């Protein structure tokens, strides 16, 4: 497996440096922060969506229960999928801006600075 082509775009450290960065405490911290947010959140929204889809397919009588005049559980549940999508988007953007971007920028500056 030696025909891996190296497409460098200039200003890069040699290949060994990437492994050093990868093992550095800052980078380990960044990766942990990213994964600790996105993995559980992905599991959550897929489970929440599947719950909705399964109820729609197999519990349509439950979904048809009316809460107020013609507004039934199915409609509210569906609209909650919109709400949860918007809320998760907001939470992630907030988290990324505050907890991910500063660390990522610091590491990037170190890498690109060292290569110059």
């Amino acid at each position, binding site marked *: 497996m030696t*025909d891996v082509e190296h497409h460098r775009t200039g200003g890069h450290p040699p290949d060994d440096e990437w492994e050093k960065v990868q093992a550095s405490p800052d980078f380990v911290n960044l990766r942990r922060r990213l994964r600790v947010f996105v993995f559980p959140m992905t599991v959550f929204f897929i489970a929440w969506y599947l719950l909705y*889809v399964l109820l729609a397919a197999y519990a*349509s009588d439950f979904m*048809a229960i009316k809460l107020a005049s013609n*507004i039934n559980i*199915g409609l509210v549940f569906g609209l909650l999928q919109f709400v949860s999508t918007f809320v998760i988007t907001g939470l992630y*953007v907030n988290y990324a801006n505050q907890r991910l971007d500063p660390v990522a920028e610091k590491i*990037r500056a170190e890498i690109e600075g060292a290569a110059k």
Partner: protein
Amino acid sequence: MNGTSILLAQESQVIEGINPLLNFGIFGAFVLVTLIIVFRASRNTKTASDYYAAGRAFSGPQNGIAIAGDYLSAASFLGICGAIALNGYDGFLYSIGFLVAWLVSLLLVAELLRNTGKFTMGDVLAFRMRQRPVRAAAAISTLAVSFFYLLAQMAGGGALVNLLLGIQSGAGQNAVIAAVGVVMIIYVLFGGMKGTTWVQIIKAVLLIAGALAMTVWVLVLHGFNFSGLLAEAVAVEGGKGEALLAPGAQYGLSALTKLDFLSLAIALVLGTAGLPHVLMRFYTVPTAKEARRSVVWAIALIGIFYLFTLVLGYGAAALVGPEQISSAPGGANSAAPLLALALGGPLLLGFIAAVAFATILAVVAGLTITASASFAHDVYFNVIKKGKTDDKGSEVRVARITALVIGATAILGGILAKEQNVAFLVALAFAVAASANLPTILYSLFWKRFNTSGALWSIYGGLAVTITLIVFSPAVSGSETAMIPSVDFHWFPLANPGLVSIPLSFFLGWLGTVLSQERNAKKQAEMEVRSLTGAGAEKATAH
């Protein structure tokens, strides 16, 4: 989706009150304005980065609007409105899958992809693998998804000609399809990604503004009482009554239709993040942070748009009525145009009809540039020329020739498939994206041990399994709504293969990986560090 299947059930009559000249005029104005913008944009298109990625100079909000323009196809506008008007709640289920899917992109794919790739999906999949086999596989998958999606759009466009322009003769419809195809080719050839993006932005603004105006109009007529609107939709004669409000009117018929729906729902949610034309849009912004902002804007616009379709669908049921919708040319797809006619007369109908054509134009342009970029960059430049060429302009030249060939194929396919039931092609495109592309992308970005063999197994395995299951499904043979209803060679019970093909592809990717000894820690370290930090990422070009 299902919308396209109803869309193809043509009737030989014309909507009363339609004014073809007016509709042509409004659509012609759209084409003229976009062509001027495309030609202006093309003056700065010189390098491969300009042609494929618009010089990475679009802002997050601009790209987010363009993503909405790329993603909201005619099927999701006319199809979902019609499905809600006729089947009520079940039409709404589609739109939720299409929206939630964007979280996969936001959390797992968009930013990391922007940081590691240049122009195509193949850039990311092949980053730490042996270049040539993986790029070839990525290109085949990209071309397959784009071609299925393109054919479905063009065939749907053919059916719309009668509905929206009142043209019944076959030759006349073919001429309109060819004209739409030629305009699309001009956008892509001259405007490249920048021109295509502007077409998508303009179209998205018109589509969302038109839907907003109609939604407000419908709500004003009902005193902003949504429950009252629902009551009116239920009370209309010839409809499904109370069944409109709960799920099940369309999918709840049998255990099999429920399972089929489940399979579709999973493919929709996991397929979006693997659609090559969506992925490619993330390269048009300068940084990962702008890619994140793009997705935020796209989620907001797409979400709001689907809320509009909910009001428009029930509005069409209440104000137009299911009997008139079903008997109009285009069936369910006529719901939104008929509602426009009922609300604002021929002028609003003309606007909505023009927007529907603009929608097809923008979506096929996005697909064509994606497919041509993949062929030129992955196959020609990296596989055939092995990543080295003395002639700087040759890659873009190949991309333009490819776009021409794809455009011609799309016109021909659109004309031939006009009378065919090819609705399964969109489901197929999403299933292939979710099966062949998504596992490979996620493994590449998050699994250290993943290697060339694993990538090839998940791409080719996912592609083969998905296509095989579709060919032997009731969507192709053995049912009344099949593409070939007269014969029956189906043995797979579901029209949507996702339920089987997606888990199987993830498994194949794992199996292929562990069966191979290949490890490349250095390249993996480079990819991981670059994907998370943006170090060494492709920068915007200054003009």
